[in-house]
């Protein structure tokens, strides 16, 4: 069995081409070739150098910021002297804003838990994988669900006086109405764009808008006793 081979196998050291792949189709289907010759580049140096460059630019920006702006440092911690307002770090101020309207279990525990679970399960539900415009299929049924959901959510926020969250909600609802009555073949690019957006896109955009509005309000527009203040008039 150990006869000397009369050939050597090897790989040239400078092969520029990608390897070829052989595919066996076992079921009775025809293989559809979408991309047959994709241009590929070496991770080193092409990808790594770009990443390094991006990180270097970021570092330069942060170094400059750090040279000109100082991190805050207040007086020694004093358990007997509660500042008013006592604010959480900025990324939790959206939740702290909710704390103003709902009991702590709801605002501080239930809402964040629901958010995390909702984010985790996004890729596991087919509605979120679907890429077709929300109102293009089953139009009648989907419109009804949309009306019910929009009115229900708005009334809920209205009932608890959460106007900060109600306004962005109404804004998104208004844009969705435009989408609902736009055709993907509309001559206006914006209406075409809106008409093509799937349901997951709308929910996520609503969430993003609420996140930004609530965080900005909590950071800049809330003062003593969580009352409204204007940041430029302190």
């Amino acid at each position, binding site marked *: 069995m150990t006869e000397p081979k009369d050939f050597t196998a090897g790989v040239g050291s*400078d092969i*520029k081409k990608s390897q070829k792949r052989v595919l066996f189709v076992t079921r009775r289907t025809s293989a559809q070739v979408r991309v047959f010759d*994709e241009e590929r580049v070496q991770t080193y140096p092409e990808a790594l150098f*770009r990443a390094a460059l991006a990180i270097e630019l970021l570092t330069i920006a942060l170094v400059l910021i750090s040279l000109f702006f100082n991190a805050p440092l207040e007086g020694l911690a004093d358990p007997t002297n509660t500042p008013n307002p006592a604010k959480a770090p900025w*990324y939790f101020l959206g939740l702290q804003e909710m704390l103003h309207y709902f009991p702590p*279990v709801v605002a501080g525990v239930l809402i964040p838990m629901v958010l995390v679970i909702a984010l985790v399960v996004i890729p596991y539900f087919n509605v979120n994988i679907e890429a077709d415009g929300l109102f293009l299929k089953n139009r009648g049924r989907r419109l009804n669900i949309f009306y019910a959901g929009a009115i229900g959510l708005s009334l809920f926020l209205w009932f608890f006086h959460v106007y900060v969250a109600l306004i962005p909600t109404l804004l998104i609802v208004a844009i969705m109405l435009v989408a609902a009555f736009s055709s993907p073949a509309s001559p206006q690019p914006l209406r075409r764009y809106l008409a093509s957006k799937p349901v997951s896109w709308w929910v996520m955009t609503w969430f993003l808008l609420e996140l930004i509005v609530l965080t900005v309000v909590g950071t800049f527009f809330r003062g003593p006793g969580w009352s409204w203040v204007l940041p430029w008039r302190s």
Partner: protein
Amino acid sequence: MAGKIDDYLAKLERTRVWRSVFRGGTGSSTLRRALAIQQNVFLHLFSTKVRRRMLRFNATWYLGTLTLGTFLILVTTGILLMLYYRPAVPQAYADVKDLQFVVSSGLFLRNLHRWAAHTMVLLAFAHLFRVFYRGAYRPPREFNWVIGIVLLMITLLLSYTGYLLPWDQLAYWAITVGSNISATVPVIGEKVRFLMLGGHQVNANALLRFYVLHCVILPLAAVLFIAVHFWHIRKDGGLYVRQSEPVREPAKEDESVELEKV
């Protein structure tokens, strides 16, 4: 002069010791470049080749890469800060004051750590939304999305535990607000807060616990999950590309074949 240095480096790279450390070496051939990735335990998380479409700015806005960048800055500045900081009451506050006014470049070090930390939280969120709007969370990348959420949680916890360490009014009351919220969880809330703080309110025990979490446990968890995150990109077939995106760049000059010096 420069030529001499180049010669010297080239010689160094051919020594036995160097080659035992960097087996593949760098060098100019495709094989050498592939080995540079494949023979390195860290870079081995990536594939040796990527589709050019994946590197387009529009695919990712480089937001994940930049998040990694802030993390690297934070590890570096964080280790230096640890040299001057004692997690005890009232030393912690005095040490931070010293960093501001006594330690040379201490102010800069603290600034960089703080601003990089805020930036990391911001970038992790931005990365999440970019991945979402790109549609890159869809199968087969769904589990990497979940790992991403875990990374977001770790990022938030890192920032939150670090927030207490200066032991100033800002730190103390921000953490008090947070820990009071966790105490409202039905049944286990009080227990959770006790475990988190090592007491019923924010005190020296809490500072020590947050310090250990911030400087040891959470960074290790972050490194671990970042490694899994990167490895998953490779196993999921690289970054997401759309069929509609052009497969190759507009035609350019034929690349001349580089010959490897032996």
